[in-house]
């Protein structure tokens, strides 16, 4: 051993000075490179000893841990409920209303459950996309820009020309391109739009969908004018309602064609942790849309109450009366109407009656109160 060592020393001695220089340089570089690694912001662990408020104890321990950072997402699930995008309104030469929307597709990482980040494709940076709301008979103009990394489109469920369908060859645009969809707002109802780029499943479940509500024009429905007026945003009759849009969605976070997180309006357990405040005396109308991929059916069940249901919202009389559960297949939607006038104030749960979806994040509560404090 000793012999080998001295042989090495003899052979390599001349490079010693160079080595010294290297070593010194090395330390200098090290010092400048001591930047801290990017911290992985932990969402923390729950404080086990905290006394639970009533709305949390209702779920027991079966709930996601922690809170989603709404500011980081850029949208607050509570605000999404009534955040209508009514566009820019102008009048056409013939006296018709022209309603213009601007929608931009962009890639964005969103937090879909506390600590779980999902690489979403979004309309206007939010999932679900903006809840577009128009009135029956409006001329609609939707300027769509694709700032995403993949081809996208807006395929509206409505009546329009083939050219405006948002399928490949008709309004499907590549990254950096722009397209203007133009058609009349009809039929009135609770509809949706989604990306129709292929593969369809992936484009939809990545977050490219939104509610598309067309309010009935009371003038066209003299036999149900009062009902139509109550549905028309901006009327005093409509102001007497508490309206919420709920898009039932889900996320396949590990891309195995099964959903890991279910929700309404994206964030798991959002309305379980922050119940939706509802006035006892004011009727409730929910625009409910199902865009869950991979599972054929979703549903909505209301606790301790029954509701009237307008399938696809295209009628002014209920298609189902006095039910407490409805099912919706993929892209099916409808309007729910109910009230808590004869109920005592308290927490009233709602969730799909596929227990699996409920347990994986899609559940919420109405906090029924006498008056807003």
């Amino acid at each position, binding site marked *: 051993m*000793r*012999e080998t*060592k*001295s*042989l*090495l*020393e*003899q052979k*390599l*001695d001349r490079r*010693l000075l160079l*080595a*010294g220089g*290297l*070593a010194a*340089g*090395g*330390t200098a*570089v*090290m010092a*400048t*490179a001591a930047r801290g690694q990017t911290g*992985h912001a*932990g*969402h*923390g*662990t*729950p404080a*086990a000893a905290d006394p639970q408020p009533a709305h949390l104890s209702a779920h027991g*321990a*079966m*709930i*996601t*841990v*922690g809170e989603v950072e709404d500011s980081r997402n850029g949208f607050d699930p509570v605000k999404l409920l009534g955040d209508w995008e009514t566009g820019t309104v102008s009048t056409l030469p013939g006296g018709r209303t022209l309603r213009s929307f601007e929608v931009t597709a962009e890639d964005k990482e969103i937090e879909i*459950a*506390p*600590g*779980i*980040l*999902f690489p979403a494709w979004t309309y206007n940076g939010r999932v679900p996309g903006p809840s577009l709301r128009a009135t029956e008979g409006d001329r609609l103009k939707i300027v769509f820009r694709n700032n995403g990394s993949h081809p996208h489109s807006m395929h509206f469920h409505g009546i329009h020309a083939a050219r405006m369908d948002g399928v490949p060859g008709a309004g499907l645009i590549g990254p950096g391109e722009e397209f203007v969809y133009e058609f009349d707002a009809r039929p009135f109802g609770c509809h949706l739009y989604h990306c129709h780029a292929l593969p369809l499943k992936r484009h939809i479940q990545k977050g490219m969908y939104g509610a598309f509500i067309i309010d009935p024009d009371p003038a066209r429905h003299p036999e149900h004018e009062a009902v139509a007026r109550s549905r028309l945003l901006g009327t005093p009759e409509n102001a007497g309602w508490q309206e919420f849009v709920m898009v039932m969605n889900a*996320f396949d*976070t*590990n891309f195995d064609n099964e959903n*890991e997180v279910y929700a309404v309006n994206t964030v*798991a*357990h959002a309305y379980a942790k922050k119940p939706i405040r509802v006035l006892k005396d004011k009727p409730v109308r929910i625009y409910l849309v199902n865009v869950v991929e991979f599972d054929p059916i979703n549903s909505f069940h209301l606790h301790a109450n029954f509701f009237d249901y307008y399938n696809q919202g295209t009628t002014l009389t209920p298609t189902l009366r006095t039910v407490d559960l409805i099912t919706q297949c993929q892209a099916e939607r409808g309007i729910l109407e109910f009230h808590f006038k004869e109920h005592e104030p308290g927490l009233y749960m709602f969730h799909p009656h596929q227990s*699996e979806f409920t*347990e*994986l*994040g899609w559940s919420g509560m109405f906090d029924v109160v006498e008056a807003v404090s």
Partner: protein
Amino acid sequence: MTDVSRTSRDTQAGWPRWLSLLWIVLPLAVLGLAVAWMVSSDPLASFRNGAPPVENLTFERTIIGNDGIRILVRAGGSEPMTIAQVQVDDAYWQFTQDPPGPIARGATAWISLPYPWVLGEAHAVNVVTSTGTTFGHDIAVAVPTPTRNSPSFAAQAVLGGFVGILPVAIGLMFYPALRGVGRNGMDFLLSMTVGLLAFLFVDTLEDAFELAGEAAALFQGPTMIVLAATASFLLLMAAGRRGGTPTGLALATFIALGIGLHNLGEGLAIGAAFVSGAAGLGTFLVLGFTLHNITEGIGIAAPILKERPPLRTFAMLTLLAGGPAVVGLWIGSLAYAPQWSALALAIGAGAILQVIVEMVSLQLRQRADGSRALLAPAAMAGLAAGIGFMYLTAMLVKI
């Protein structure tokens, strides 16, 4: 030799001592420089293609108790990974992580879930990380995990006695009967011992590899087993031959040690089967183990047939070979991480290999005709009997 070393010492004397120190500093400095360059100039930037970091999570221990399910996980990702949520049976469940925060590569954390598990039923735990990647862990049959002070410990000791100590004692009780055997009988017995040891060697290694498969990748299970087995083999060979090749009682002691380490593994397996609920241990199964292990006693007795050891030596040999089964049962039932059990089994495999080598060399030395002794009909019959008996009785106990 002396001249050469003097010459080199003279040469060395020509250089100051700090120069030789520098030759230690230089390679380390180059390493430091490489690390610094890597960190500062980020030459791997072009490889970064937007892919999320590689994540890996191994489930090492599952403790099921009154307060729910506790799981020890070990991270093996390219970067520290964060557990965002935990599902149990497809439901998000409240959990606490100890220690909290991101888990560094190679580090472990306890996940505690206050989950109302159901006795005797299956449950599935699914960990969702911050990137949405999931890691599943199945609890095949939920039964409470024994604790260190639970009454089941005494019962396990009794069971270990049945599986390990009793059969070795029974085997050793053949000692007086075996003393009378002739040369062929001796050949038969020694070869039978080699045969049963060969079976145990394969069996132990197989179990070790199986356990290593469950361990985190960073432990490099198969490599660890081969290295540990080789090290234990070499160490025991060296230790055994310090006072010449072991014969008689010394050899019997080494056989007892090797068998003991194997029985430790057997105990671990039974204990682990208990805790995972995989085995509702039946009487038949326990008797199978007893039968399976009786030949071990005969094997230990074989090298000392020409000696007259005192009775307490037999007691010591019995405890050395059979006692570890009790210890294994205890450790196994506490659901320790698979890599430690694999390590213990690998050491056992090395020990068994050592006694096989020593047994064969004993046979070679005892007979003038050398290697032909191993091929004598009695020896071949013994080998076949040893392996065959072990294989057939193992059918009673493999689940």
